[in-house]
């Protein structure tokens, strides 16, 4: 049964679905209803060690680096408008393939060209992140963050992390000033 999380809430993925091998992390948002530049949201993932930093730039998975070097984390590609039902961008994670020194995966979303287009998350309708079992399609947790966003242009939506031998998911919903570059530098990427 899927858990609807609010900001700060967490759920044990291992307990909810012990058989899960592959994680599907979906990001979605509604196409812009008003006139003006489309909202182009970009999902990215940072593979972080216990220090909260990436091991190398290759641990930053985004539209220009769709796959981690070990292949365990894969971004399936860029959607530029939010058009279509369901997930607009998807990241797949092979949980057993995630290197042991990776303690946490931070799933982030940035608004492309937000400054030029004068856009922020508060304007985007229907933004969510959800976690599902890729093989069964069963949704495990979902976080609708439309109400928690305001003037941010980059957000840490959620994180999948190890805790006492389990994988857990936390709805973070934390804004970050500046966009993808500063966000990446924050996590130790030489962007």
């Amino acid at each position, binding site marked *: 049964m899927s858990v609807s999380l609010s900001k700060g809430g967490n759920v044990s993925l291992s307990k909810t679905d012990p058989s899960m091998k592959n994680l599907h992390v979906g990001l979605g948002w509604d196409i812009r209803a008003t006139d003006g530049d489309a909202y182009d949201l970009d999902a990215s993932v940072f593979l972080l060690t216990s220090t909260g930093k990436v091991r190398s730039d290759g641990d930053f998975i985004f539209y220009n680096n769709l796959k981690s070097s070990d292949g365990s984390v894969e971004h399936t590609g860029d959607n530029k408008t939010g058009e279509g039902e369901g997930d607009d961008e998807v990241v797949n994670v092979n949980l057993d393939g995630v290197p042991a020194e990776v303690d946490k995966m931070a799933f982030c979303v940035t608004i492309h060209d937000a400054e030029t287009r004068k856009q922020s998350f508060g304007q985007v309708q229907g933004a969510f992140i959800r976690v599902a079992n890729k093989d069964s399609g069963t949704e495990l947790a979902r976080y609708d963050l439309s109400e928690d966003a305001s*003037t941010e242009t980059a957000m840490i939506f959620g994180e999948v992390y190890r805790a006492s031998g389990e994988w857990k998911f936390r709805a973070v919903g934390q804004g970050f000033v500046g966009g993808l570059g500063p966000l990446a530098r924050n996590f130790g990427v030489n962007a």
Partner: protein
Amino acid sequence: MPEFARGQKSRLSDHTNATELNVGIDVSSAQNLVFDICCFALDANDRLIDDDHLVFFNNPVSPDGAIRSVGPHGGDEQVFSINLAALSPSVVRLVFTINLEGGGTMADIARGHVRIVAAGAEVLKYPYYGADFTNEQSIIAAELYQRDGWRFGAVGQGFVGGLETLVRTFGGDIASDSPSPILAPPAPAAPPLAPLASPSLPAAGLAPSPPPPPPPPPPPGAAAPVSALSLFGSTVSLTGLGPQLSGPPMEYKVLTQRDRFFAGKLNADQVEQAIMAYASEGWVMISSATAALGGRREEYLALLGRPIG
């Protein structure tokens, strides 16, 4: 007092615990732009509940009485007084819109704001500027909506299309068989001549002016004044006609809010200008009335007359 930026949202309870609020909306421009400011009361599906839940100058009170159009007040172009506690339970979102009537775009405005005033004190404000917009003719300025209590959202987004686009966005139907006054396309100016059925109606109050220029011919198919009035799709009763007098043959005209002189928002200056403009052609006010248009809408009507020849 917090200033909101576009896209910012907040619980109303973070700013005030009052349930009786004034929502003040202001727009200023160097040019002489004309604005309609409306409040759409929407249901849980973001649909306008019905026409009566579109509150504006011409429908100043929602059916539950909880939304009132106050008009210009306290320095704001338009104020809505909202009693959140008295709103019908089906109303879960109030959307405040600004629509430019006639030319211009929102980029032409100098500045404006939406603010909330509770118990006489401003509790929050969302300022916006022409530079925030490009070619929008209508915008959703801000909204109050229910989600674990009431929240305020600074929206500041809109449409290149005007009011029709807004109405369509909220599920309204423009091309309906029963046009509502604000949604219907602008009617042509009232026919220049709409002779009343009885040409011997009063000449009382006629100005002793020189004979007016010969009237243009009646428009084809123009029938009794009822046809002009039926523009509104409702029955109009005119009151105040004097006793019948004998006098020169008369012609009459019904001036309405659809008239070219005061299309749009009713204001006294425009009415005055319209009456003066017609007076220069020899027309004299015979009576005025308001016509009920169903629901709580009323429209101002003026009956003018002048002797033929």
